[in-house]
């Protein structure tokens, strides 16, 4: 499949990304924990999460949340989009039975001294009315049809 890359010039400040809704299941939580080699019991053991930790269920682990944010962002950019930096703050846990909604807005656009085009995004992961995690991301997009952020190395890559 050939798709046209999203270019830096295609993006505008305040632009909203398409929302992503995901129904969280126990399988999804366990799959994410095992895929990231996170063996801590609160991500797969209901009794531990409830009786030892006082939570309502097992919950999404940190690396898996990062993977969800990455997937959300690169669904939008396509494969030429290259993540430079991501910061996220977890305010509450995401449990089986939750419907998590990821939404994002472009909040900065800049070009660095090497000519790399950077998009800053504010992303939220919400369940119902509650924001569970906030994420700020900085990713590079091609500035022209023949630019490829993945070609950048060393001093030409300033994430």
């Amino acid at each position, binding site marked *: 499949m050939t798709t046209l890359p999203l270019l830096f010039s295609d993006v505008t400040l305040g632009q909203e990304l398409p929302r992503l809704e995901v129904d969280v299941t126990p399988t999804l939580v366990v799959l994410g924990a095992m895929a990231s080699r996170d063996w801590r019991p609160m991500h797969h053991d209901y009794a531990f999460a409830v009786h030892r930790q006082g939570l309502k269920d097992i919950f999404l682990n940190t690396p898996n949340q990062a993977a969800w944010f990455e*997937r959300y962002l690169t669904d939008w950019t396509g*494969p030429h989009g290259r993540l430079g930096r991501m910061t996220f703050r977890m305010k509450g846990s995401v449990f089986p039975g939750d419907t998590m909604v990821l939404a994002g807005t472009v909040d900065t656009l800049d070009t660095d001294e090497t000519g790399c085009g950077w998009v800053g995004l504010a992303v939220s992961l919400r369940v119902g009315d509650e924001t569970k995690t906030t994420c700020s991301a900085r990713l590079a997009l091609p500035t022209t049809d023949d630019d490829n952020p993945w070609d950048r190395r060393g001093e030409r890559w300033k994430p």
Partner: protein
Amino acid sequence: MSLPPAVAAMLGVRQYEEAAEFPVERGYIWNTCAAVHNANPLYWDDVAAASITGGPIAPPTTLSLWMRPHYWSPGHEGERLALRLHFDMKAAFELPEAIIGDNTLVFHEPVRPGDVISHAQVLRSVSDIKTLHLGTGRWWNIDVEYWNQRGDTVGIESYAGFGYRKPGQ
């Protein structure tokens, strides 16, 4: 409030410098993508990966995956832990519970199948005693630096952990 000397001595010191127990492999790349339904062709289509990234790569957010120990391996007893400085801080302050609050990931050279990743952990700071809705304890900041077998930095992670004791605990 001053820190215990043993903790103060750890600030800024590289610890747990070690190489991964296994090379980067595509099974975990596909498991990671499957877990979040990530259809990015960089991870599924070798032709796309060859033209865009010069061959297959791992999703950038898998950084910590490659350094997580096997749950068990010969010669080890009990659960083996990743991010050991986090657990060192829990033990140093005798705090039975802990969470990770903030996590920053900075991505450098792409990680590729066959790479052997190494890492080191650095304790950057420890707060005074704080009381949150979870309980009373301390925040600590830990950086984890990752590099490949050629010595290229592949990423840096920063964690803010909060170790605490629940009310009545």
